[in-house]
């Protein structure tokens, strides 16, 4: 029971986003720094998968996302929605801007680099490279849904809010993405 209490108490007691945002909006850099650290990994992962596993780009864009968040924090209205959705929306737009400026990507090279570094994390459950290649064949929307749903454990409702779509549309995108991944991985297994 104590662990239950601790778990819930800690959730309850952590400086909530609301408190931190309010302070950050008043110019408190520490408060924003705490928000930054809280969402850093999630935003980095999201960007990393959107920029075809290009680590330098993922780093630059992640920093840009938080810079934009800091600059536009005044426009965020706490009561209108959660900070998480808002920052993902910034990340989404920043990645789009990145692609507008720089369309070409050396995909193969990045996949090779990324799969080398991720192989250790993922182990032998499935060939990392195959997953990355398969992920890359997904549409941008499918990739976002898969990333947010399975890597960030967001609900369909949250994803729908960020991508400004209906929940059913998110479920459909998720289903089609999984189906496509299944087919591609099956092909990979057959030909390797």
């Amino acid at each position, binding site marked *: 029971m104590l662990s239950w209490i601790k778990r819930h108490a800690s959730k309850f*007691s952590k400086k909530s986003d609301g408190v931190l945002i309010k302070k950050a909006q008043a110019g408190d850099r520490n408060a924003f*720094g705490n928000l930054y650290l809280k969402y850093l990994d999630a935003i980095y992962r999201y960007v990393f998968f959107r920029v075809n596993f290009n680590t330098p780009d993922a780093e630059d864009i992640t920093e840009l996302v938080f810079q934009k968040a800091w600059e536009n924090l005044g426009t965020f209205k706490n009561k209108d929605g959660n900070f998480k959705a808002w920052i993902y929306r910034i990340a989404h737009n920043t990645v789009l801007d990145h692609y507008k400026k720089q369309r070409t990507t050396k995909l193969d090279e990045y996949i090779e680099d990324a799969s080398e570094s991720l192989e250790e994390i993922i182990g032998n459950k499935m060939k990392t490279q195959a997953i990355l290649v398969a992920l890359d064949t997904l549409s941008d929307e499918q990739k976002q849904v898969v990333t947010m749903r*399975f890597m960030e454990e967001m609900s369909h409702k949250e994803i729908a809010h960020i991508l400004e779509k209906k929940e059913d549309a998110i479920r459909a995108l998720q*289903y089609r993405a*999984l189906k496509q991944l299944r087919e591609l991985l099956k092909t990979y297994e057959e030909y390797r």
Partner: protein
Amino acid sequence: MKNTDSYSDIIRSLESFQSIEAPERIRQKVINHWITVDEKTKPSYTSFFAVRIAVIVLSLLVLGTAGVVVASENSKPGSILYPIKKKVEQIKVFVTQDKAKKTDLQLNNANNSLNEIKDSAKENKDTELNNATKEYERDVKGAIDTAKKSGSEDILNKTQNTLQTHTEKLEEVKTIVPTQAQQAIQNAINASEKGKEEVKSNNGTGNTNNSSNANSNAEIKENGNSQNDSHGKK
């Protein structure tokens, strides 16, 4: 809408990407650029007190009225109120910030558990004996952790001396309990000894007889508190 069960292997693989983290250099950059020195070093009292307030509120909600809590104080292993008593003990430890007081509380809880071990063993209550032994091991481990974190020689010495007394007490109990209970007692002795050695190596002084410890409120008190009183009357 559509069942994702047939994709569980793919989903598991995707979930494994959750372990990807932003490079450490970005994290350091954020800390250096956004977090001031004061914020980096000062303990988060707001968070700390909020945790404790939340624990107290939740505890009251979960445990019901204060009357139940008070009534549970004299409960014995096997009693319906006994689990509440143990939870109250844990909560008291959790909400105590001062390391010396926290260690005292933990050693006191260990002392209570030790008395429960003794009583359960004498009465051949195997389940209660095993539970009390586990409680004792947990209490000792908690006390050691707190003592080590405190870094205070006094606290470490006090812990070491109290555990020495516990070991002696348990050795004594072991000789008078039925054979089947001896293993549980031995487990408790092992926990006490291991803890003592751990504290000793951490302390480095090897002090086993610090006079300042003589008055430790965590020392074994044969019938020194309500819990012990109830045992003593048997």
